[in-house]
């Protein structure tokens, strides 16, 4: 493979998407874990959709929601001067939405598993709610949150369907590595397809080993 642009783009997009999905996902997970309402499970189902939807369908929804004719897409354009779809920012949005449910599910489970008595004793000793979250809940849930963020990163890096729908397949501009692998196969360029697949596979293995280690150390 002589053109490494798709790899760098993929890494850049997935790092930014992971940060966004991490911040957003942990916040949503915290609310879901603490919110005692039957609406919570509905909200959780909705934010989990990206896991079960075909990625192309997810991409289609995003395209409809953020496209140049949608109100969100038009607000973005008036704010930043260029459309969101078929740009690298679009790729970041697609990767973020794909990664989000992995972060939310892992973080929500980890936050719910924190011993409520530890949180209660923090309140009794006078800590305000946000300090209970920062000093007690989130540190105690850190392993689960970390595992979710790692899985989210792997998902963001590997996303094909949603990315190709929202960001397109513009070589040198929005073509991420998974999309480049697809292109290479279509063009009969075996060497590029093989190298790209090996790189993506290797990163996925590293992430999974990391996640397994994190859980193994849990005793």
């Amino acid at each position: 493979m002589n053109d490494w642009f798709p790899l760098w783009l993929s890494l850049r997009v997935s790092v930014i998407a992971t940060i966004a999905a991490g911040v957003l996902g942990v916040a949503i997970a915290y609310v879901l874990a603490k919110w005692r309402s039957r609406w919570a499970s509905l909200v959780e189902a909705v934010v989990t959709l990206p896991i079960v939807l075909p990625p192309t369908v997810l991409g289609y929804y995003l395209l409809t929601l953020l496209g140049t004719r949608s109100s969100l897409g038009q607000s973005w354009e008036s704010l930043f001067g260029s459309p969101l779809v078929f740009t690298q920012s679009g790729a970041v949005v697609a990767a973020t939405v794909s990664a989000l449910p992995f972060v939310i599910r892992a973080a929500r489970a980890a936050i719910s598993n924190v011993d409520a008595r530890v949180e209660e004793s923090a309140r009794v000793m006078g800590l305000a709610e946000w300090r209970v979250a920062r000093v007690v809940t989130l540190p105690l849930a850190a392993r689960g949150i970390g595992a979710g963020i790692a899985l989210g990163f792997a998902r963001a890096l590997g996303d094909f369907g949603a990315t190709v729908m929202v960001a397109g397949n513009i070589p040198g501009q929005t073509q991420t590595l998974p999309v480049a692998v697809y292109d290479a196969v279509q063009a009969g360029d075996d060497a590029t397809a093989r190298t790209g697949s090996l790189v993506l596979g290797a990163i996925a293995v590293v992430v999974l080993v990391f996640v397994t280690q994190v859980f193994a150390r849990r005793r």
Partner: protein
Amino acid sequence: MTSLLVDVRVAVPGFAVDAKFAADLGVTVLAGPSGSGKSLTLAAVSGTLRPLRGTIQLDDVVYCDTARGVHLRSQDRLLGMAYQHAALLDHRSPLDNVALAVRSGDTATRRTVAMETLQRVGAESLAEARTRSLSGGERQRVALARAIAGGPRVLLLDEPFSSLDLAARAELRALVKSLVAERQLIALVVTHDQADVDALADRVVRYEPGRTVSAGE
């Protein structure tokens, strides 16, 4: 005379307890078999559980009055607590654990107060130890320091010595007794151990399953 008045019905699914007693300065032991509602009463006093009905009041400060819809947050009740479970944050040093409970001052002041409190309970050498590796008795000392560091008026202890050996129990009972006297605290101590009752109690509230609990001397 400072006094904590408790007159509540506390319920969780499948179980309810009526408790009515007054606790003055000194140690009031809530004694009785497990499952008789002692810890539920403490949860109501600490504000982590809303009583079904009734009032809890420290002098003229109403912690809880279900008839008037008053329920003071745990944070505003000026309590200290040390429970058998969930006592310390293992990811923070013992000094941090105590400093978190200090209610006013900047970081340096909080740490100074925390250090003084650790000294008072004879645990200053543990200040920067790994919390996870403390022994049961050491943990309980740090937990006591944390419970009193915020300058509480009411101290809640739930089976505080149950995981300790006999020698450590005796030491910690003496420590609790002296802290309560020195800091002018109202202490509620939940225990099913008669030795705790004998060593600590200024007053005893006896719990029996299915009965209204009220105070006796």
